[in-house]
């Protein structure tokens, strides 16, 4: 038994080694100091929280509720927030003024058609040659907008302003802002999934939390059910990270679910529209330089796994609290960033 213990500990040491690498990424000594100071402030925060919340119970410290699902128990928090989601006041004709949405029409034909007075796809429905195809496009924009999204995807890059315009056609209530917290970047468990949407007044923030890793599947399922009620996903880098990550974790448990929702990844727009104004496109940087949000006592993303591990190992809710706050702030910042991007991309250039 002693031997197996020893070897298991050796495997666990990989974590320590990789963490040491992160903080000591240090041949270029000049660059490491901001990271290191952030790291040590966060470590201090963790220690303080562990002291402060020693012996306390998570559920009595927060508004989370324990709920039962077919897949076991999980935690859920629903919080109303006095904040509104601003969406573009797009109109169908405005988007459909792009005749190139019709298969076969390029810039040259579009110009010719516009000169003949066909200003929108809707007007083109009566055209002898293009009418039938134009009607298909028109129907997509009148029906469920997922079809319109797919059509746009065929022709436009995901950072094209058309997607921002299209999002304006969705009802506000259909938006789901999503952000997750995980133990790693590849195939480690996800333990917190945040989802914000517009409520009857203001916004509602949901947080789906795995109390421990044995609740991961129940948490994923509970989150998925809430996400399925919405029609449009809004994330920051979720196209590459959050959504595939969630799908991978579901598949890990044999739940082969894909989220078909149209997806607005604000990271892509930010890079294009605001990138020149900031030193990088991390959400934290954008918050400071564009949105004017200052977070106090934040846990840096790279230390989120460490905080959650500390919570699990010490059975102490302290280190979990800043992660929840971090996730909540990410969701709310996305609402602000969305508004900012609409200003910049759709109105700024006019």
């Amino acid at each position, binding site marked *: 038994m002693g*031997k197996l213990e020893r070897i298991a500990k050796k495997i666990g040491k990989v974590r320590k080694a990789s963490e040491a690498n992160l903080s000591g990424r240090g041949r270029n000594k000049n660059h490491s100091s901001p990271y290191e100071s952030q790291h040590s402030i966060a470590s201090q925060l963790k220690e303080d929280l562990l002291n402060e919340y020693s012996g306390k119970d998570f559920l009595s410290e927060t508004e989370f509720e324990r709920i039962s699902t077919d897949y076991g128990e999980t935690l859920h928090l629903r919080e109303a927030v006095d904040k509104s989601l601003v969406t573009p006041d797009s109109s169908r004709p405005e988007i459909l003024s792009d005749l190139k949405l019709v298969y076969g029409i390029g810039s040259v034909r579009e110009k010719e058609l516009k000169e003949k007075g066909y200003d929108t796809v809707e007007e083109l429905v009566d055209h002898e040659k293009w009418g039938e195809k134009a009607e298909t496009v028109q129907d997509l924009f009148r029906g469920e907008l997922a079809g319109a999204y797919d059509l746009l995807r065929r022709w436009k890059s995901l950072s094209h302003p058309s997607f921002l315009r299209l999002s304006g056609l969705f009802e506000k209530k259909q938006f789901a802002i999503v952000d997750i917290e995980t133990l*790693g970047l590849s*195939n*480690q468990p996800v333990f917190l999934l945040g989802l914000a949407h517009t409520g009857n007044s203001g916004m509602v923030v949901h947080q789906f939390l795995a109390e*421990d890793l*044995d609740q*991961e599947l129940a948490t994923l399922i509970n989150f998925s059910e809430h996400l399925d009620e919405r029609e449009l996903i809004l994330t920051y880098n979720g196209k590459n990270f959050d959504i595939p990550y969630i799908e991978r974790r579901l598949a890990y448990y*044999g739940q082969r679910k894909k989220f078909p929702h149209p997806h607005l990844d604000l990271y892509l727009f930010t890079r294009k529209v605001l990138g020149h104004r900031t030193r990088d496109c991390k959400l934290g940087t954008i918050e400071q330089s564009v949105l004017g949000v200052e977070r106090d006592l934040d846990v840096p993303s790279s230390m989120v*796994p460490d905080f959650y591990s500390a919570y699990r190992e010490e059975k102490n809710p302290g280190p979990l609290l800043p992660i929840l706050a971090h996730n909540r702030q990410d969701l709310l910042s996305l609402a602000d960033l969305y508004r900012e991007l609409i200003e910049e991309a759709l109105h700024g250039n006019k």
Partner: protein
Amino acid sequence: MEISRIVESLKDQDWYEGQIEHLELLPERKAEYGQANFDERIKSFLERKGLDLFSHQSRAIKLINEGRDVIITTPTASGKTLAFNVPVFDRMLNDSDSRALYIYPTKALSQDQLETIKDMEADLGLDLEPRVYDGDTPRDQRPGIRKRSRIILTNPYGLHHYLEWHHKWKDFFSNLDFVIMDEIHSYRGVFGSNVAMLVRRMERIFDHYGSDPQFILSSATIANPLEHSRKLVGREFSLISEDSSFRGRKKFLFWNPLTNPDNSAHNQTSKLMAHFVNHDLQTLCFTLSRRLAELISEWCSGRTDAPVRAYRAGYRPEERREIEEGLRTGEIRGVSATNALELGVDIGGLDAVIISGYPGTITSSWQQAGRAGRGREDSLVVLVGFENPLDQFFLKHPREFFDREHEHAILDLDNPNITMGHLACAATELPIREGEDLRQTYSGEIDALIDNDVVQDTPNGAVFSGTYRASGAVKLDNINETTVKIIHNGKLLETMDLAQAYREAHENATLLHQGKTYIVKDFDLEEGVAEVRWKEVDYFTQAISESDLEITRQLEKKKAGDVVVSFGEVSVSEHYSHYKEKKYDRVLDVHPLELPPLEFDTECSWFHVPESILTNVEEKGLGARGGLHAIEHAIISLTPFYAMCDRWDIGGFSARNPLEEGGSIFIYDAYEGGIGIADEVYELLENLLERTYELVMDCDCEEGCPSCIYSPKCGNDNDPLDKEAAVYILEKLGERFVY
């Protein structure tokens, strides 16, 4: 000229002094042919290529068609590849969804075999998009390969990291009908055990996607092919081992360079090679090190006008391919290579093979010898025995070589050092569910992982709970991952691992690459870069190191007779303190080196020699340190017989302890963390010491010789050594051990 006349003409050379110890004639063998059923299109493919199936190939095809898992162990150039490609392509022709995964031990082999597969694909008019998928595959091409390629070639190192992304391989894995694993004799020891665990991880993923592919394995000849296959894959296999292909007559020469002491073994090797090349024999010479591959080709080039090249790991792929092609077309007349050319790279048959130094295993020897033989022609193999007991033993006892059983390939699936890391990986790939084979076989290991929060037990199975990547906790082999880039004029010349760089890329070292000599101008350890300049000099350098060893933890202890034998963890450091400039065998100069020691932790077995014995030794006027050192060398020289390893896999250390507390001899694994050889030595030490005693005692030499206590890899230049002291100590230990 005929082979036998060329061999005779060796005796007329002024450097010939009776080196031929033995000449073995291997007779011709007639081919036998067979029939098998398969698609008409494959039949006409074989006809177009003028291929008749040998009976071992047809039997393999029949067994594969029956759905059996098959292991083929016929020698190099007997048509193994065709035996499994025929049934695979037969399936591909008739099932448009079917997929096959080919696993090779090296990247170079995957590339080589891809060409063969592409030829067959093109000839059959199929569109399978066969592709290599490994660390060199550009990221943007990977999704397309996973989706469209019906044949993918890869290696275990890559698979180890790809498996956790199995969702991306769903289409491929769901339709997988065949897994081909070539050269499985290289999957032995620790590396092989890691691959066996990897196979088990693959199998549970295949199962997850509802596929159950057939396994087809191939191997060089080993003693235990069925057992090895079963342990590697966890299934029962059918064996094809009878080679029914044609084999021409072969002359196998044993060459003892010691009879001409004025010429080193390496020097004589290059003369032999030049002699053969000059007599129009296309010759492949296998050497034991990268440096020797370079030196021998260089020295040989000085003795012939024919194109002669070196071939070794570290070359860029395009350099390697050019040499392979040159060998196939016959343009290149001689190549001196490391064992990088031992595996199935397609270079055609050669007229002559020189095995310069016993490669450590019978299996390797025959693999290398198998490169000789072209069509109906006679061929020649020369084993140049080195100045070490193993080589000398074979030269003096040829029957021991020719009649000796091939080595057993040993796998250890019960070694938690190996299995537990893979269990963590498996839990990352899919939860390890109650009732799964893995869970039942390794319940103790999984419990330990749960207790230490590497995985967490959940209602859905054991789930990986780390914040790191489990695959990072497992290394399939012990190749040092720290690499040093050799830069010439701002361009990458080659790469080598750190230990090699200490020997070959320290400041002012001569570095040989493709027959050119470079001098290392600057060795930046921190950045892992060595800058070299091209400069033809007539010397080469050799770094000299001293080792130190510190016991960090004693894990086990036993008494054998009166002698205490221990096993535990040690820290070994290698300090490269100076280097020599040499011309051929002559030392021109010695310079100091300033390098921090290379340190690693490993496992070790050691025993104590009582003070009373050593005091007696000294009273007789003999050297106690020399005696201990001699025993250490002799044990190491014999260890390859006991654990399937190379002499270079283990290290030794001996010391006369201060304060008259006797002496100690240490045998350790020359790999970080240990690989189980020292553990084996601990178990077998009595037996091993008895054989060591016989070896040293029975040797005819006076004060020690290369055949008993001289080591070709000694960091201390075989100094001090005292044979008489060694015999005395071994004899006295024998009384205590009762051997």
